[in-house]
């Protein structure tokens, strides 16, 4: 018997839960999963640079490779299989139509450096998507190339610094709220700006008085997220924008939470100067186990000349790609080629499918779902801030006080109930945060099941059922993993066993 109380097996498999070794442990010389024609006779222009040594790659046939990856996939939770109440991530349904159209050979087989005349359809798609993003956000200009949200933030903040330098006044620091996502200060540091945190008030919003006190003529930018990382709309945002602009600084918005307001509010109307969007959040492109993303940046006409290349320019019916920089002092390119075209196609299909009415409904249902959760869990968990939330609701660990159970333990117990945990320990402004974002993709029945499980767990925690939590998860492909051991003795790759190890 194993510690979990299940019968141990000879094979190491447990029914459909397969024990799958590493590729390197399965491979054998002489096996290959791809048939290729012979190179044929003929000259060799490698000079003295031919690689003669063994690379060390394992050989597998196609059936072995397929089985390997199918078995690995079975160990993963996914949005297709269940709800992710992950605050700040917007885990919504990934429509399969988007996968189909992204794979059209007329898109998938385009080389980025083909002559413009041979890719007019691709350029037209990028233009059409950027026009939609401009309409939805209210800005006149979009930089499409950033590869993900963090690169979008870097693009936005660098564009701001370039604009300030063109004025002859680069300034010296950036203000971010204490609830900011870690990418915000990391990005500011890459732009040469030390970061100062502005405290949040007891209503969970940025403290306007503190912000005013911290602003000065040496502040380059204020970076906010709106709705913020507590799931609350920054209701003093117009005053904030006025204060920021009054000192000659720029107002950057992290657009990670755009799902709450798409089609209902335009960030440009809030006084924001630049904002990145996460196509892999609001616009449904799949998370793929960690990426790829896409982080286009919308911005004002004042900032546009300083944005990095490339941009698309229309002359009558003809589109062309402008690959050299805008004005003197514009930010240079951040990556090769043009942007995450595969994600553009998917996001565009998502936008066309929803239209303005559908997108408006996305925001409404996202906010409705989060408030439904909040109301249902109000008595059993501890909501951090009173009143309505936007598309995500923030709980903290006060409801677990004196139970000996932490937010982490509660999250691991959610796994046994069949749910991916909520976002834990973020934002840092409350203790033991549980940030919960259901998205508009969840039906009422799905939400009711989540509510039932979270309520049940809260009640069991208060009833002193500690082992349920301390030993969770019990039903996942792995129990809790020793992260201390992984960090103290990092093993970051497979290595062939030494002769002594092999002899054992």
């Amino acid at each position: 018997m194993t510690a979990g109380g299940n019968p141990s097996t000879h094979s190491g498999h447990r029914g459909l839960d397969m024990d799958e070794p590493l590729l390197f442990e399965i491979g054998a010389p002489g096996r290959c999963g791809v048939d290729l024609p012979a190179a044929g006779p003929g000259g060799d222009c490698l000079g003295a640079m031919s690689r003669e040594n063994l690379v060390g790659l394992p050989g597998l046939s196609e059936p072995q490779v397929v089985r390997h990856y199918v078995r690995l996939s079975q160990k993963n939770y996914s949005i297709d299989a269940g709800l992710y109440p992950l605050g700040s991530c917007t885990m919504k349904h990934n429509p399969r139509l988007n996968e189909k159209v992204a794979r059209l050979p007329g898109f998938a087989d385009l080389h980025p450096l083909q002559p413009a005349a041979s890719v007019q359809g691709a350029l037209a798609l990028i233009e059409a998507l950027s026009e939609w993003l401009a309409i939805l956000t209210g800005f006149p200009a979009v930089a499409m190339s950033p590869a993900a949200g963090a690169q979008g933030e870097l693009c936005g903040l660098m564009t701001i610094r370039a604009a300030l330098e063109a004025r002859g006044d680069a300034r010296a620091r950036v203000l971010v709220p204490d609830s900011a996502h870690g990418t915000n200060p990391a990005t500011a540091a890459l732009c040469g700006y030390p970061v100062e945190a502005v405290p949040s008030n007891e209503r969970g919003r940025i403290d306007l008085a503190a912000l005013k006190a911290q602003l000065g003529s040496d502040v380059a930018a204020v970076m906010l997220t709106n709705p913020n990382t507590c799931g609350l709309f920054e209701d003093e945002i117009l005053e904030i924008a006025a204060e920021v602009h009054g000192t000659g600084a720029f107002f950057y918005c992290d657009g990670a939470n755009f799902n709450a307001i798409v089609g209902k509010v335009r960030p440009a109307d809030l006084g924001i100067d630049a904002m990145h969007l996460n196509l892999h959040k609001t616009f449904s492109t799949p998370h793929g186990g960690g990426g790829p993303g896409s982080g286009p940046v919308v911005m004002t006409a004042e900032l546009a000349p300083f944005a990095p290349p490339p941009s698309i320019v229309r002359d009558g019916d003809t589109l062309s790609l402008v690959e050299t920089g805008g004005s003197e002092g514009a930010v240079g390119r951040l990556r090769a080629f043009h942007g995450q075209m595969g994600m553009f196609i998917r996001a565009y299909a998502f936008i066309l499918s929803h239209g303005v009415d559908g997108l408006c409904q996305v925001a409404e249902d996202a906010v409705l779902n989060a408030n439904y959760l909040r109301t249902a869990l109000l008595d059993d968990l501890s909501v951090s801030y009173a009143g309505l939330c936007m598309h995500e609701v923030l709980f903290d660990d006060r409801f677990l006080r004196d139970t000996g159970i932490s937010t982490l333990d509660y999250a691991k117990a959610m796994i046994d109930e069949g749910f991916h945990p909520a976002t834990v320990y973020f934002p840092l402004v409350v203790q033991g945060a549980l940030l919960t974002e259901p998205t508009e993709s969840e039906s009422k029945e799905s939400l009711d099941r989540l509510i039932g499980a979270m309520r049940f767990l809260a009640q069991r925690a208060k009833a002193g059922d500690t082992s349920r939590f301390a030993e969770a998860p019990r039903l996942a492909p792995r129990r809790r993993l020793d992260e201390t051991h992984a960090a103290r003795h990092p093993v970051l790759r497979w290595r062939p066993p030494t002769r002594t190890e092999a002899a054992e």
Partner: protein
Amino acid sequence: MSETRYTRDHEWIRIEDGVATIGITDYAQTQLGDIVFVELPTPDTSIEAGAEAAVVESVKAASEVYAPIGGEVIEVNEDLQESPASVNEDAEGAGWFIKLRMSDPADLDDLMDAAAYAEYVAGLD
């Protein structure tokens, strides 16, 4: 004779023959959890009082450790590379971080003695 002093940031410092040995307190290590790595300064560099002397990493956090006094780094605890766990097991002994040759003994005057530190910690939540 050696004496140990403590800071409000939970560092300890033990003086013996003009050499100060510095580390973090047992209270600090319980707060941080399992230590996985300690980033130490290079020997033969000098550190000012109040400047960053080391960084202690647990799985989920990294905390700066500030020099309670200034001086020249004469030795760092190389054993921590292989066994960061000694900071958890024996924070005020084998888990030491740095040995400094003090530049100004007067720096010690503002630090707490063992009794004052114990009282300070008891007063924390």
